[in-house]
């Protein structure tokens, strides 16, 4: 029997409805950082983001039997997170100027942002599978803010500058293969 974390969303949701606690935990594990990051990005402080985080999962649990597209769960979670952040901010009169209108209106869901955040989540998982030194190199090359020059990358990774190019090539190939295997962002 496959472990819950390897199952797709549809299967996890189905098992949750059968009362499978492992499936519920795996679903939370899969999207916990997505939900928490979205809550923090709306401008709530850490304590408020944690309260909203809990409410989002309670809402999902209640709604499990009605989820129409389990594969589109990131979008569903984004709508719930923004609504609950908005409600929380209104209750406590705590919101960041200019953020709350777009937080609540599903018609204005920042789809590209949610998609890219979910892509980031999937890539981070895939990089963990790919392992070192590729994971570190790709993170430094693409996820470092602000972007680094080759000299800075060489210094950070403690690699001779001349080896970075060939290694990067090999790492991207490896990543591409791993992504194909898990169908990341296809």
């Amino acid at each position, binding site marked *: 029997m496959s472990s819950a974390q390897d199952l797709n969303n549809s299967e996890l949701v189905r098992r*949750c*409805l059968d009362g499978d*606690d492992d499936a*519920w*935990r795996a679903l*939370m*594990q899969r999207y*916990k*950082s*997505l*939900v*928490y*990051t979205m809550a*923090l990005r709306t401008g709530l402080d850490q304590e408020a*983001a*944690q309260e909203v*985080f*809990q409410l989002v*999962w*309670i*809402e999902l*649990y*209640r*709604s*499990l*039997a*009605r*989820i*129409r597209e389990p594969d589109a769960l990131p979008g*569903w979670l984004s*709508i719930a997170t923004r*609504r609950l952040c*908005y*409600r929380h901010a*209104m209750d406590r009169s705590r919101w960041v100027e200019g953020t709350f209108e777009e937080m*609540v*209106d*599903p*018609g204005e869901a920042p789809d590209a*942002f949610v998609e*890219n*955040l979910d*892509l*980031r*989540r999937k*890539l*981070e998982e895939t990089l963990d599978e790919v392992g070192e030194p590729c994971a570190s190199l*790709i993170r430094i*090359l*693409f*996820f*470092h*803010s602000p972007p680094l020059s080759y000299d800075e990358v060489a210094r950070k990774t403690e690699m001779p500058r001349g080896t970075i*190019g060939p290694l990067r*090539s090999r790492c*991207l190939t490896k*990543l*591409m293969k791993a*992504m194909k295997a898990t169908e990341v*962002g296809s």
Partner: protein
Amino acid sequence: MKHPSWEQWLTFVSGDETSELAVHLEACGECSREVELIRRLQSAGAVGSLVSPPDALLDEIESQTASMRPVANAQTEEQVEWELADVRGAQTASPGEPVFLARSLPGVQLSVLVTAPQAERRWRLQGQVWVDRGGDRPIRVVLAHADHVLCELQTRDGDQFTIDEVSDHGWKLEIHLADDRTLVIEDPFA
């Protein structure tokens, strides 16, 4: 085939699209896969890193959901329509002014008072349900929007319930009676 260099593709992806590279990309599967990967990595990089919540929060949620059950879809829904006069009332009602619905259906009577939000998106729904039989059994009231269950509460025969919830237009109020009947009232302002 001579493939353009990595540096050329980076410049290409960042918007400086030369036609020469675009032509190559059309013809070369290998490079187009690489460029697609660069684009994805850059998009994923631009959103910043994800933050994990403390694990204790997941334990907390699990302990709460352990005693809950997902809200099932209604077996059969009985739509309780707003009548023309009510709807007209809803269309001309100013924000904050309640709209009232009272119905007598076979075996059940209900009344619902809906107050649309003013500046904020907070709806106020107050209601009462009377059943001819099984009055000692709980009645579940659910506010849903698309495939989201926004809130769920229990009421009893003759008790007043109040829902104060943030929602967009298009919500649905479901009254799940003890005998598997579900009455559905839709947002009259939608």
